[in-house]
């Protein structure tokens, strides 16, 4: 896979962003934009229009559920994957209702995480040339 899209990676914990950032780089050469809370995520979403959003649920200032709601309001086509630490079915279902594409457990073994993200990205952007929407539109 050679994923070159823009990813907005949101988590309040820097070590999680570090780890998931490395996981994303295994999928190709994505452009990674980092946000540390929901508020940052919403404003960075508007600024960068990323191809994919990874959004933590529990965050200070603005949590993932609120950020998801706002992002989906601004862009109903947004592709958002929730980052969860527990399979809290209620939250997962609530986010799915709000328009989240899927969820990713942060404590998954690395290779499972790579496999899951590979599948999600292949489903969204096609298996081979997984470049970003804008780049794909360019000749």
């Amino acid at each position, binding site marked *: 896979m050679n994923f070159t899209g823009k990813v907005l990676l949101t988590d309040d*914990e820097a*070590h*999680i962003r*570090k*780890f998931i950032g*490395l*996981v994303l780089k295994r999928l190709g050469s994505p452009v990674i934009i980092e946000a540390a809370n929901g508020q940052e995520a919403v404003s960075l979403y508007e600024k960068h229009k990323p191809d994919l959003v990874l959004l933590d649920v529990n965050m200070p200032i603005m949590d993932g559920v609120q950020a998801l709601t706002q992002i989906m309001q601004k862009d109903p086509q947004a592709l958002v994957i929730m980052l969860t*630490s*527990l399979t809290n*079915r209620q939250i997962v279902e609530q986010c799915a209702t709000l328009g989240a594409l899927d969820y990713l457990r*942060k*404590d*998954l*073994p*690395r*290779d499972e*995480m790579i496999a899951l993200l590979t599948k999600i990205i292949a489903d969204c952007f096609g298996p081979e040339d997984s470049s970003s929407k804008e780049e794909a539109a360019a000749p």
Partner: protein
Amino acid sequence: MNPPVEPPKPDLQGRKVLIVDDDRLNLRILSRILKPEGLIVEQVYSGEDALAQYATFMPDLVLLDVIMPGINGFETCRTLKARYGDNMAPVIFITAKAESDDVVEGLAAGGVDYLPKPFRGREAMARLKVHLQNRILNEEQKKLVAQLSAANSSKNKLLGMVAHDLRNPLATVRGLAEFLRDDGKDGKLTTDQIDLVENIYSVSQSMLEMVNELLDLSVIESGELKIHPKPVSLTEVLERSVTLNNINAAKKGSHINLKSVDLPAQLNVDGPKIKQVIDNLITNAIKFSPPNSSVSVEASQTAADCTVAVLDNGPGIPEDEMHKLFKDFSQTSVAPTAGEKSTGLGLAICRKIIEAHGGTIRANNRPGGGCTFMFSIPQPA
């Protein structure tokens, strides 16, 4: 003869006694017996007054005359019992004669004892003391039980919080170690460095497993274990679990064989939780069997239930330790054969998951050696 050793007697100072009698002379005599002992005495003259006074005075003991104008003593006692249930203060009836019919009816109405007239000061006080002390001990016990269960539930909460907060950082440590290990494979690390990384990886992995078990336990203990049954192919769950666990088993030169699977196509269970049980039994079988062992997994069904059995080649469980197997934090004297870690929680969690499915889990030593762990889940009727 030595007197029996008695537990320390609680202090009766300041305890409250409600005396109910229409005969004021009786009231005076009883008050005179009780007050020197430091008891607080309140007197009323009828059953109706007793019911009203009880609610505000909240006595520790009630002395209740039987024959009074208005509602009699037995009726008063029955009403108190209906209102206060097991929390009602002990009621001692005052009876003119120790007539056995009265005594029996009094005890049936919820009284604990009777005091015959005429009163003998020391005997009356002795009886009163016994019942007051029981009452106080009883209250203290209730308070202790409440304190202990509050302490236990905050322990569970703490356990859950700690485990939950440790999980993400540990997962990161493990994940980053894997990236570093890849660098090692690319020749960017020395052999010593690769060894260090392997250590970081395996330690964080086993810590993560322990933390997950603690988290499971705290969820189960707080009564939040919820089973979400869906039609699941148990055969597929078994196949997946055996395949995955064979990767780890191979590191010990061992192998897991899935044989004789006879199961219904679908069973209504919580798939991930049942997989957790199967994984746990298989992991244990590998842990406690010598290297280069062969572990068998078998599944069968009857009209009543489905059974999954895991057969190891370990030393078996000493019979006198069998009862410890499925309890929290209990480990038997049998140790893993390659220094693997164990929290002593895995089987306790398995038991709770299986019981939540209405099933049973058990273990027995095989005459030929080795141990069999199996669980059964009822088939829908």
